[in-house]
């Protein structure tokens, strides 16, 4: 069954289309990623799917319910970890969790149990009774992540879940996200502009650019579509042409290109092909000075589809949206 079905969803702010007709399906139990630069429309898409913003046109079903007219049913089945802070800083960490649990109708005994569990998970047990305004940025983020897990949602949305976290905590959260997905079969939809995050976590990734999905597949397939790994060989000029000629006989080499004294080969499973390439070189008595293996990253995929890199451009999303809006209206 599909946990989320999105058909041609559009959100326009005046003339400007923040989300411009996206469609995708997320299977139950999947970790699905929306990857793209800041201001691409990921957060707006999430806001529509979590019933916080009404779509301008198009439709979507979350956990089997239409987001347009079954908002309350959708809300019962989802959780969201927001990109921007959404805690009450005048309450303690524990109170924030408790209020959240009551808002989801979780009875006292289960509530205490879950609160203890998530506090332990996000390592805030000893800060539970401290007012949130005295928390550090990372602690606040961890508390928010813990809060989103309390009601054990069927579909959990994570909007840039690890922005501003130190590498250790980030790894920790990633592992937890994976564990949650495995044990509870929670469907996860996350937005991110961190390539490694999408690559490490997601079963499928949609690249979002200017409110549109430009590519959608498993990270592996996306990378493979680029033509596999690149094996880069530095060879002596003597016998180079002959070497290339003999390489052309190998069917597993998809493409050969040369520049200066380098020969680049597009192959799949680069690690396993290197010995074979060496064997050919040996037979032809070609001396290889240096071998390099480059595996295409999702970054390369993104560059391939959009012609630019995903940069961590800094500045808040709102600012980015504003500048994009300005650029748009100036046209």
């Amino acid at each position, binding site marked *: 069954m599909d946990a989320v079905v999105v058909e041609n969803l559009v959100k326009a702010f005046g003339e400007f289309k923040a989300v411009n007709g996206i469609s995708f399906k997320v299977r139950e139990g999947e970790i699905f990623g929306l990857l793209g630069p800041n201001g691409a429309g990921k957060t707006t898409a999430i806001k529509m799917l979590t019933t916080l913003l009404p779509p301008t046109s198009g439709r979507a079903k979350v956990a089997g319910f239409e987001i347009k007219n079954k908002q309350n*049913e959708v809300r019962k089945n989802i959780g969201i970890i927001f990109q921007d802070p959404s805690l009450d800083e005048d309450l303690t960490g524990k109170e924030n969790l408790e209020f959240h649990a009551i808002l989801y*109708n979780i009875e006292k005994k289960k509530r205490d149990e879950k609160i203890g569990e998530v506090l332990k998970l996000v390592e805030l047990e000893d800060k539970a009774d401290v007012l949130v305004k005295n928390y550090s940025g990372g602690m606040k983020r961890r508390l928010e992540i813990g809060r989103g897990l309390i009601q054990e949602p069927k579909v959990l949305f994570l909007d840039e879940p690890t922005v501003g976290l130190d590498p250790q905590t980030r790894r920790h959260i990633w592992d937890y996200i994976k564990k949650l997905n495995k044990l509870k079969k929670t469907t996860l939809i996350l937005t991110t502009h961190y390539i490694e995050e999408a690559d490490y976590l997601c079963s499928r990734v949609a690249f979002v650019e200017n409110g549109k999905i430009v590519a959608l597949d498993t990270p592996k397939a996306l990378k493979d579509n680029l033509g596999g790994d690149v094996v880069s060989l530095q060879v002596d000029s003597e016998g180079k042409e002959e070497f290339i000629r003999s390489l052309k006989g190998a069917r597993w080499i998809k493409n050969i290109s040369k520049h200066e004294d380098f020969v680049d080969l597009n192959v799949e499973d680069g690690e396993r092909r290197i010995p074979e390439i060496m064997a050919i070189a040996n037979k032809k008595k070609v001396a290889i000075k240096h071998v390099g293996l480059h595996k295409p990253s999702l970054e390369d995929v993104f560059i391939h589809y959009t012609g630019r890199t995903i940069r961590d451009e800094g500045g808040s999303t709102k600012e980015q949206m504003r500048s994009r809006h300005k650029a748009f209206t100036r046209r």
Partner: protein
Amino acid sequence: MDTNAIYVLWLRDIKRFIRAKSRIIGTLMLPLFFLLGLGLGLGSLVKLPGGGNYFDFIVPGIIGMSLLFTSIFTGSAVLWDRQFGFLKEIMVTPNSRASIVVGRIFGGGTTAVMQSILVLIIALVIGFSVHVTIYTALAIVFMALIAATFIGLGLTLGSMINDFQGFQLVTSFFTMPLFFLSNSIFPVTALPSYVQYILYLNPLTYGVDGLRNALLGTGTFSIWVDLLAMIISTLIMTGIAVYAFNRTEVG
């Protein structure tokens, strides 16, 4: 109605109120100055038509005023919650918008009534004399209804306006006329008859008159007329607040 949401929002306001001690003291300052300046100072020069002590007359008016100000301010909490993101957190939970509004009114109402009782105690210390009747306890009910009406107004404004500066401008545009065009600091009959009609449209007039009926045993209208008027204004303002809040986007 989702009672859980109402309970949580109520509890949240109580906790925040108790923790913000400096805010409590701050909100008691303005009524205190009014009691001293208007009640005692100006009051010594004022003769009420039909007799009576002006200080006693103005105490319910000042309680009404402090309720008006704090309630509209409380309504503005929506703006803060929007700013700090907590609004999203509430809005995405499976609770009706109406129960969020009602929870806010209950929470803000409770804290506003607690403040008013403190103002009343200060007035008693300064020399306010309550005329105790079987209706005296109704004073609390009137305080609650005044608070509910104007929290409704505050929530409505808070839902429609997105920036703080705009909100302050608009609230003073509402609070000043609501305060001065009521019977808070003078009796309705002190004004020319065509202005009196405006006062009759102002819920605060009935609220303050109800407080006078309850605390002093005298008023312009019957206490039941006051009560009915305040119940109606509470229902209308809650309805408008729910409507406005329903339309607000968390964007």
